[in-house]
């Protein structure tokens, strides 16, 4: 018998704007993510992948339907249990790489020394130790994205969400980041959802959800979903 889902969406929708500029980013999505799930969320640019990632992370709220985190607690408890690797640069300019990686741990209330130790370990996992004392403005786009991934891993989250984490990386670095994300998720027994349009990435994950114009197609035989892989 399966345990409680980490996150559960029921008819969750997210729209932006009003009147003529009204846009539906996600149509009534119903889906669950369990611990141990390895999900690739694929779709074209603008299909709503990022919005769904934000909804699953609790960073955004649905305008219709509900999202809950049965195995993780209330939305306010999510920091530290859910981690997100953002698509855009997301490092804080005045903090060095170690401080950036340790930041969510400190926000969660961890002792500074322990947070620093965990940050160093996460950097080592992604082979970033040499960059530990660098400032974000001294990193390339790819390096910054790998540091962002290290930051997500450092907290050992139960649910790991990544929004196009390899978009700015070369093939080898991208593969290294995906491997690290999968390894970290495996080690923590976490659920992993990666939004990507990179076929190589999606092939490394067990399940693929396809998004087309805001609609989520799950791999389970349900009336409104198309099974694309298993």
């Amino acid at each position, binding site marked *: 018998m399966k345990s409680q889902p980490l996150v559960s969406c029921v008819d969750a929708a997210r729209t932006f704007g009003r009147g003529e500029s009204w846009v539906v980013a996600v149509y009534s999505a119903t889906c669950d993510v369990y611990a141990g799930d390895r999900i690739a969320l694929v779709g074209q640019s603008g299909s709503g992948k990022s919005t769904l990632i934000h909804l699953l992370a609790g960073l955004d709220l649905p305008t219709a339907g509900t999202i809950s985190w049965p195995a993780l607690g209330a939305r306010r408890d999510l920091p530290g249990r859910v981690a997100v690797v953002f698509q855009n640069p997301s*490092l804080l300019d005045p903090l060095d790489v170690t401080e950036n990686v340790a930041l969510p741990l400190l926000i969660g209330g961890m002792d*500074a020394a322990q947070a620093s130790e965990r940050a160093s370990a996460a950097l080592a996992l992604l082979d970033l130790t040499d960059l530990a004392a660098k400032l974000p403005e001294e990193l390339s786009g790819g390096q910054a994205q790998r540091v962002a991934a290290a930051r997500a891993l450092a907290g050992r989250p139960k649910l790991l969400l990544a929004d196009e984490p390899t978009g700015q990386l070369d093939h080898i670095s991208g593969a290294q980041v995906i491997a690290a994300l999968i390894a970290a998720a495996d080690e923590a027994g976490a659920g992993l959802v990666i939004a990507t349009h990179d076929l190589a990435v999606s092939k490394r994950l067990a399940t693929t959800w396809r998004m087309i114009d805001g609609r989520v197609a799950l791999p389970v035989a349900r009336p409104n979903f198309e099974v694309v892989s298993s």
Partner: protein
Amino acid sequence: MIRLWLRGIARRPGRLSAVTIGVALAVGLLATLGGFLSSSKATMTARSLTKVAVDWQIEVQPNSDPTTTINAIRSAATFPASEIVGYGTANALSSVTGSTTQTTGTARVLGISATYRTSFPGSLRTLVGADQGALLAQQTAANLHARVGDTITIDRPGFPPVDVRVAGVVELPTIDSLFQIVGAPDGAQPLAPPDNVVLLRLDQWHQLFDPLASTRPDLVRTQLHARLNHHLPTDPAAAYSTVAARAHNLELKLAGTALVGDNLAATLAGARTDALYAQVLFLFLGAPAAILAGLLTAMVASSGAERRRAEQALLRARGATINAIGKVAMVETALVTLTGGGLGLIVALITTRVAFGSWRLGPTTLQTVGWTAGALALGAAIAVLVIARPARRDARGLTIAGARSSRLRAGQPRWQRIWLDVALLGGAAVVFWVTSRNGYHLVLAPEGVATVSVSYWAFAGPVLAWAGGGLLTLRIVETGLRRGRRPLATAIRPVAGPLADTVSASLSRQRLLVARAAALAMLALTFAVSTAMFNATYRHQAEIDAVLTNGADVTVTQPPGSTVGPAEAARYAKIAGVSKVEPVQHRYAYVGADLQDFYGVNPKTIVSAGKLQDAYVAGGTVATLFNRLAAQPDAILVSAETVRDFQLLPGDQLTLRLQDTRTNSYTNVAFHYVGVVKEFPTAPRDSFLIANATYVAKMTGSDAVNTFLIDASGKNPRVIADRLRTALGATGTVTDITSSRTIVGSSLTAVDLAGLTRVELAYALALAVAASGLTFWLGLAERRRAFAIAAALGARSRQVGAFVWIEAGIIALAALVLGGAGGWALTHLLVKVLTGVFDPAPAALTVPIGYLAIVAAVLVGAVAVAARAGIVASQRDPLATLRSR
């Protein structure tokens, strides 16, 4: 592309609006202060014109025929009004009262026409009796014990005495200029006006003095008193030049047959010095504010520089040429200039209307246009410097990679390495030292020289202090954050918790940004503090000046020779509104060969009654010195000049010659010198003496009091003065402090600086708010992405607040401590450099606690509001911020 760019600006108007506000502040301030300066100068000129009773006294020279010369004068120049006045000298005047005969010394007898009063209304004031006929000056009437209807005798040299019947007693408000020696320099003018003056009808004067003119021409003079056309330039210096040139022109035409006693030019000469001081004040107090507004605008603009560079780099990458980017920047500059300039001018007009009661930025249309153009030019210059120039420079010199170069690892700037800040402050200290020495004059108006000049190098002091203070603040905050990372983390741990090290590291790397914001806020506070303290000190000294000039709220002065005793005080005390009356003996005493003003006082009551201050004495407090006076009956306080001239040491005996009323002759009276006095109500500035009234009365046989200082206790002094005048009639002169404030002349104290003060303080407040709150808020807005990331990582409002509040605290603390200290130091420097503005010079600065508390509260409040707004914004849809780039 320009249209697209403008559309982008319209969608994100915050920063451009802030830049526009900065330009508006600078334009508004310059236009308002400029308008005030022009209006002040016009007021000074107008006051000079109204103050002078007779503009020119043109005297017919000896050996010239009066009638011919007067005709020549009238044909050479056109006057709105002119009257012939005869001046004769008599041996004496005498009158008989009962069984006694009073005889005066040499007397001056003037002949004036029936229309003289109408032509020159300020020259005569009837105290009692008729306006025409034989009129006695007030003091002469007192000397002769003569009343209206009495007969006095005029004793002419070589001719039989003539009796005239007194028709009235008059006051001669401009007696000094009336009896000037025409053509003589200031130093050769009489020290005091004549004691005995009679005015006769001109025809009667001719009958009495035409015969004397043929035998003793040296005793008879003829003058033409003239009023000039007052359509003069509004600037006192220009008006002075015009009037003086007209006088010289007339003298040239008259070929030595007459000389012009130019009363109007003499008064305007004083006003032009004051006008120059007003100009200096404008520069010292107004220029820093305009520069501060410019700096503020530059900082606002530069806080968005990174975004602009990125956008420009994007435009370049998509094919935009440098010229195209330059055009876009010029359009933006023009937009800011027009909007900010227009807004600033509207603010200036409203301010001018509210503060000075006029819709114009100067007394004339030309000046209004001039100041408008000048202020707009300043606005345009600021806009070019902060928008167009950086945009063009970046477009030419920066690559995309260059735009990304590190600002957070910036090393110590060159100016810090060479200690430029300390050098600048050292320079300011040198100027302070030089201006503290004797012989320094900011405004030089040498006697007999047509132009006045300003030693503009003195401006270097405040300029160096401003620049040095700003840089020192940068150094202190920057060095503190660079070297004090660990102590800071320890200090903020109670607020920031586990994030303390992170917040400290973040602040340390952003130290240049924080230091810049702190320096700007410090400069704004320095401006507010120095302006407020300078204005408060100025106002305080102006009040002291008025008190010293008038003596008290209301002062009653008895004519010389009066025998009114101190008991008369009880009579004045009964008049409604009078709360206290202090009698003061005013006599003259010979110190060696010098005749000095001598005051007999009650040392136990004069300190409070005369509102005496410690600055009025030297070598102790005023209480100490007057206690010494009270403790020793024959003690005397003397001026520093007398101590120096006569080499006096405390305790030395000083023998003065005072008039003994019992023998009517001067007699030696011994005193002992106990201290130095510098100022005393109604006393002249140079040299005077103060002793115990009871001792003086005993030694001279008279307790006659000449001056009564009356305390109105907050009631309207003018009303009480009117009541006293009614009660006293012609037996005493009554003056009040309200009139005295304006009678001080065209001097700065008479110019209404209250409006200027209000304007400056309001702008100082606005600058403090903008320099602290606005720039801090814009800095936070520029980092909203960082806060959004923190929020997306789970940071709660309190945790984001740790970053924001600690930065806010550093900026506010630096501004308050360094700005307060800077303001205090700068005020000292300004007061030293502008010593000439103060009369008397202040012994200590006046601190307007209320205003400074408001400024501090507003500054802290503005920073707090900005911090709160930044924190709230960080929590509002952080994803939208993250998506925005």
